[in-house]
């Protein structure tokens, strides 16, 4: 796919991951057999935006630390700015809050301001039909000023498309909980709290999900070191200085 | 001397029963596991002894050697005594059962009531054991068990009444003699009663699909959760003894007790040769398989089992071969009667196992609903139907067949009606419950 991605990208709709089968369609007709290797073969243009791929990829989105130079293959996938109907709708509705719209490997990403997360979430569910919160998680970029990406993966049954909403969150900065919008966020936010220490405001029961209550630190942060905890345990229980 | 003499034989019988029962229970467990394995496309126990034949012994030794744990906050006295109550009650019930026309400890004129009453005392073992263990699972299991036993005893008792009306006596021996006199086993005369008793007896012995008290997927092991080792084994023994007891009651009441099938028809006398031939067949199989066993001990054991079967064959065949009128020939009724009785009990227990491996488990409220809303009304109707049939037959001199069939048909109609109305109320539970929970 590496070789043909360049020529295929322009006509392709901005929101990738699309297929003909709407969720309600009963056993859809067999798709064209193996001719096109890409999985989104019978894509239907919902929000065509020829401009999307025409714009040259911006090097280094702010979310990414400067990586090594891309491998010398032809045109590796890269995040690119995105501008289509969906993004425009979001932008008109939440003018200042949409900081960036990206297309990475044919997946739409909206970077938003964390303090307006709840509003945007509610709008996404009610007006844009993103009724399934597939996943909520975080990524830690310790060198950044706002170190966490809070990532919400949304899915819309009526439109059969995905959207990723990202909010940049600083350490100790409270984020509005989206539990009231998608109840499933209850555990997901607990897990994010458990693993990253992101505090969700308005969460009904914010406590650790997977780790024991008395756990110290937040394991999925990049600066977390199991040795600290291990040594503390060894000191306390075995009375010697180091276990490692 | 005269004071003691009448007690010698019963005490001897009692000793035999008490001594053999644990062994028997162990082998029922083995058979159960083998039957289960067969139904579930596996082999079952194969390691201890040839085809796992010594497994019960190994299990017994294991249980005896296990640590006997008494939970810290348990009521020690009650915890200690509860299994004993269970097992005593179960064994006591065997006293009135006629295993063949001669082998019976006591022929009480209230025989059947005695069995019912004494075996119902077994509840105490369960309830007290569950309470004394001081664990929620045990307590819930015990309460469920008690509620279940009390409920199903009602319908079991009423089901028995139907057959008692036919027999006109409570003496177990008298019941079998009544069946012998008419030539009809009561299962054919009172099929509905038999069906009710079958269901109720499964529930009473806490067997699947009614094994609520020990539903292992819900309550771990019910009232036995905290028991271990020998005490646990006692509960187990009580459970299997109870199985034997209910199977014996059913056999006595409905399946003609020690009577051979078609006992009154000389045409079928060849059936007398069936028991020895069956035993001979088993013996032959043992001898045939013996050389194929991998270990010398197992070979010897297999041969021993074969020899035992040969001995049984002889015991069963001798009365047949002996000249009429001799002492040996007169023992035929006793020996063959015992064979047929045990055979029927085994068949009944096999049905238990079969059901257990086929059906899922009832939920507790469903079980109670089945008991109180279906079985109890049906058994009451059954008693009335039987009474009607008998009244028509005995008072108005109708021929027996149409009178009894009329009674049965009416009972079945009532049963169908109960089923139909029960279906309607089957599923409203969730909505109802939510309503009340809002209230509370």
């Amino acid at each position, binding site marked *: 796919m590496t070789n043909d991605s360049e020529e295929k990208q322009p006509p392709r709709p901005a929101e990738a991951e699309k297929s003909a089968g709407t969720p309600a369609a009963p056993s859809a007709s*067999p798709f064209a057999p193996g001719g096109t290797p890409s999985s989104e073969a019978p894509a239907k243009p919902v929000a065509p935006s020829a401009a999307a791929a025409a714009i040259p990829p911006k090097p280094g989105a702010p979310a990414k630390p400067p*990586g090594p130079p891309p491998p010398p293959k032809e045109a590796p996938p890269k995040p690119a700015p995105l501008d289509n109907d969906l993004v425009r709708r979001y932008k008109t509705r939440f003018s200042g809050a949409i900081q960036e719209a990206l297309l990475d490997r044919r997946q739409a990403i909206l970077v938003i301001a964390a303090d307006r997360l709840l509003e945007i979430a509610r709008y996404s569910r009610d007006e844009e039909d993103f009724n399934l919160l597939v*996943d909520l998680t975080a990524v830690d970029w310790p060198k950044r000023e706002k170190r966490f990406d809070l990532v919400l993966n949304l899915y819309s049954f009526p439109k059969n498309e995905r959207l990723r909403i990202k909010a940049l969150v600083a350490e100790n900065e409270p984020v509005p909980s989206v539990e009231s919008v998608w109840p499933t966020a209850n555990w997901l936010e607990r897990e994010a709290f458990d693993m990253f220490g992101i505090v969700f405001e308005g969460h009904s029961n914010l406590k650790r*999900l997977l*780790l024991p209550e008395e756990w110290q630190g937040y394991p999925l942060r990049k600066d977390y070191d199991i040795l600290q905890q291990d040594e503390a345990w060894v000191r306390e229980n075995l009375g010697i200085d180091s276990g490692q | 001397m005269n004071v003691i003499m009448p007690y010698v034989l019963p005490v001897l019988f009692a000793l035999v029963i008490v001594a053999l029962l644990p062994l028997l229970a162990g082998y029922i467990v083995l058979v159960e596991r083998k039957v289960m394995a067969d139904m579930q496309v596996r082999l079952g126990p194969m390691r201890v002894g040839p085809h796992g034949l010594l497994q019960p012994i190994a299990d017994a030794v294991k249980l005896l050697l296990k640590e006997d744990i008494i939970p810290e906050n348990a009521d020690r006295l009650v915890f200690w005594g509860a299994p004993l109550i269970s097992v005593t009650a179960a064994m006591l019930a065997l006293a009135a059962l006629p295993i063949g026309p001669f082998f019976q400890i006591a022929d009480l004129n209230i025989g059947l009531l005695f069995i019912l009453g004494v075996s119902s005392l077994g509840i105490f073992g369960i309830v007290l054991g569950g309470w004394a263990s001081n664990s929620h699972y045990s307590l819930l299991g015990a309460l469920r068990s008690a509620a279940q036993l009390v409920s199903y005893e009602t319908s079991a008792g009423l089901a028995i009444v139907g057959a008692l009306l036919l027999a006109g006596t409570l003496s177990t021996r008298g019941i079998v003699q009544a069946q012998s006199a008419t030539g009809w086993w009561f299962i054919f005369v009172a099929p509905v009663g038999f069906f009710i008793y079958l269901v109720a007896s499964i529930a009473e012995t806490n067997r699947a699909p009614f094994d609520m008290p020990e539903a*292992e997927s819900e309550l771990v092991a019910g009232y036995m959760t905290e028991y271990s080792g020998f005490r646990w084994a006692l509960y187990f023994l009580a459970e299997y003894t109870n199985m034997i007891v209910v199977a014996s009651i059913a056999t006595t009441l409905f399946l003609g007790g020690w009577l051979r099938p078609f006992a009154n028809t000389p045409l079928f006398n060849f059936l007398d040769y069936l028991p020895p031939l069956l035993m001979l067949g088993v013996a032959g199989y043992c001898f045939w398989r013996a050389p194929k066993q991998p270990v010398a001990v197992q070979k010897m054991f297999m041969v021993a089992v074969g020899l035992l079967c040969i001995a049984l064959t002889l015991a069963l065949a001798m009365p047949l071969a002996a000249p009429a009128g001799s002492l040996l020939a007169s023992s035929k009724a006793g020996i063959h009667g015992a064979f047929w009785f045990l055979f029927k009990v085994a068949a009944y227990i096999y049905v238990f196992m079969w059901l257990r491996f086929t059906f899922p488990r009832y939920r*507790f409220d469903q079980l109670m609903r089945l008991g109180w809303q279906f079985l109890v009304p049906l058994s009451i109707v059954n008693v009335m139907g039987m009474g009607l049939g008998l009244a028509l037959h005995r008072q108005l001199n109708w021929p027996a067949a149409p009178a009894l069939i009329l009674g049965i048909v009416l009972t079945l109609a009532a049963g169908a009606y109960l089923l139909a109305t029960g279906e309607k109320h089957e599923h409203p539970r969730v909505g109802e419950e939510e309503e009340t929970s809002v209230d509370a």
Partner: protein
Amino acid sequence: MAERYKTAGTNVETTVLGADEIILNMGPQHPSTHGVLRVKLRLDGEKVVGSECVIGYLHRGVEKIAEHRNYQQFAPYVDRMDYVAAVSNGLGYCEAVEKLLGVEAPPRARVIRTILTELQRIASHLFWLGTHALDIGALTPLFYCLREREEILKIFEKYCGARLTTHAFRIGGMQYEAYDELEKDVERFCKDFDKRVDEYEALLTENRIWVGRTKGIGVLTADAAIAMGVTGPVLRASGVQWDIRKAMPYAAYDQYEFSIPTGKSGDTYDRYLVRLEEMRQSRKICLQAIEKIPAGPILGKVGKVLKPPPGEIYHSIEGPKGELGYYIVSDGTTQPYRVRIRPPSLMNLEALDQMIRGHLVADVVAVIGTLDIVLGEVDR
């Protein structure tokens, strides 16, 4: 007495009877919590008025491990999440990394992947059916199910040498060529399998007790299911006809014809029927796939050292339990910067509380069974 019960590890708030609640602790060592799930039930009598799941007993920090392994090294770890359906886990991960790299597996590899994944779905559903039936008290279906599952595991074993944690796929395709009789084995399995499913149905579907135990139990409406993020057969049983294999086809699913079974009422019985039908559909896919396995290479052009360009990808597949998603962030090095796994079991389990309220303790067991959770995946 209240004092006595406290010491026994459970907690009676006032008395046992009456309007007062008991806290009943189920698990983590309970025979039917499918591993190490612990549910704290608040009971009124035997009726559940609330519950709280305590999870994490099997947490191994898979996501953290991923950050210290390179892309290939991490692949075997995902097999250990949903250990009942390791092949599906592997497929999701490999495809996600392939997308991140911008490569695609060759057609032959994709067809074989489809076959193995569908077999894995059948195996997973079989295991579910067996244990679910066992929870409800039917002992025998378990062994029938394990018998068929064994056939599938034998195919896996013949293919890659492992039965459970197979690591069957590689990033970019597969490492091993299909063995010679793969088609024949799959065909033989499929030929018998239809009758076998009928056998399970004969044991359960019409059984009054089974129907009584499952109908109307643990009802999840479509809206509630979506709100709780429930996916997979549980969602479909609630009437939402959504299957990633159809909605966003991956591997070779776009080439095959199959239907998506859905339920109506979203109760335990519907979930049972949906999964049974899914097994039949998977069999259908397998039969179509073995008809024509394209020739060609099995491994795409990926280097020995994988250095995906910076960026991120979310890729999900329809696992046996629901949407199994991988969100991978690359910083351009050989090690993933962050791997987030979206475990379907976790979200499905989250709906448990809602589903068991107002039911009895016995139903809790049935509902846990019907959710088809694997704690290895819930806890990761």
